[in-house]
């Protein structure tokens, strides 16, 4: 160390990368990345990654790697463990020893003998409808999806959900009570209390209630309680 102290030369190993392909990224075995990785070039993962990966080139997940993220790339080769959806514009290759929990989507999907996959597999060009339904499906049925047979596409269930609230409410009762429908909609989105107190007379509101975000895990505070607490503090 002391002999190097007065020379401003680059460290010996740094030159090796300047010569090699500069657009190749390696996440080493002892490395843990938590966050998004995106950009152009290839990516090799031998360590741990949590967060979305979006790369224009090839992604290789090595045997020792633990990846908990969705991967989007031109080509994806998996030899390690991945928990997340794999979307490739060219091909997804699951090699022997790989463990994948998540959906696979690519024009070409290869699963070698010894590769474990739990999830939906779709070959061919990615369809827009499937893409749109994916987010809804992910929130609705993350657990149950894996157990279902592959032949039963969850995509068929999802598109019906967003369309149902608009079709019954708008065309059937446009004139009679648009204000009531408008007033009934917001509480169903926020808290479950007011919804429960008032008996749900119409099926439309039920559907709308089912559509909204799930009820909060924490007991919802009454309107204004926070403000009162603030005043008391002062």
């Amino acid at each position, binding site marked *: *160390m002391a002999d190097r*102290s*007065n020379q*401003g030369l*680059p*460290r010996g*190993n*740094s030159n*090796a*990368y*300047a010569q090699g*392909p*500069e*657009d*190749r*990224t*390696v*996440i*080493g*075995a*002892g*490395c*843990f*990345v*938590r*966050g*998004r*990785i*995106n*950009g*152009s*070039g*290839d*990516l090799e993962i*031998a*360590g741990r990654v949590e*967060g979305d990966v979006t*790369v*224009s080139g090839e992604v290789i997940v090595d045997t020792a790697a633990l990846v908990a993220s969705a991967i989007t790339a031109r080509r994806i080769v998996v030899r390690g463990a991945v928990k997340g959806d794999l979307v490739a514009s060219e091909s997804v290759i699951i090699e022997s020893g790989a463990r994948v929990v998540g959906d696979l989507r690519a024009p070409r999907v290869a699963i070698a003998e010894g590769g474990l996959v739990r999830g939906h597999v779709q070959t061919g060009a990615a369809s827009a409808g499937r893409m749109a339904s994916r987010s809804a499906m992910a929130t609705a049925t993350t657990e149950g999806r894996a157990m279902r047979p592959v032949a039963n596409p969850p995509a068929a269930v999802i598109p019906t959900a967003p369309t149902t609230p608009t079709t019954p409410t708008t065309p059937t009762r446009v004139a009679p009570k648009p204000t009531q429908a408008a007033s009934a909609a917001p509480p169903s989105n926020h808290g479950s209390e007011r919804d429960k107190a008032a008996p749900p007379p119409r099926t439309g509101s039920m559907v709308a209630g089912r559509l909204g975000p799930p009820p909060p895990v924490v007991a919802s505070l009454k309107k204004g309680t926070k403000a009162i607490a603030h005043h008391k503090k002062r």
Partner: protein
Amino acid sequence: MASTVIGAGITIEGEVTSDEDVVVLGTLRGKLVAKDAVTVEQGGVVEADVESGPVTVAGSITGNISSNDRVDLQNGAKVVGNVKATRITIADGAQFKGNVDMDV
């Protein structure tokens, strides 16, 4: 070969923790913790606090650097942030703005 290389076209937003060397040719935002050497090559951009062993900078770092060994700012390096290390070299042509703490 260093174990972790962030390529020129790659951007990582988040926290990178490594037990081994890290070489940055691309962009890293967030936090960088390495037990071993960190090298930011020419063209590499680190917008993060760096906590590591020896640090060699030929690119740019915006953030505080804390090293348990030495920090070398090479010609062409651009560092904005405080540097804490046992030894520091700043080469002619390196840009640096920040405090230096050398545990005197």
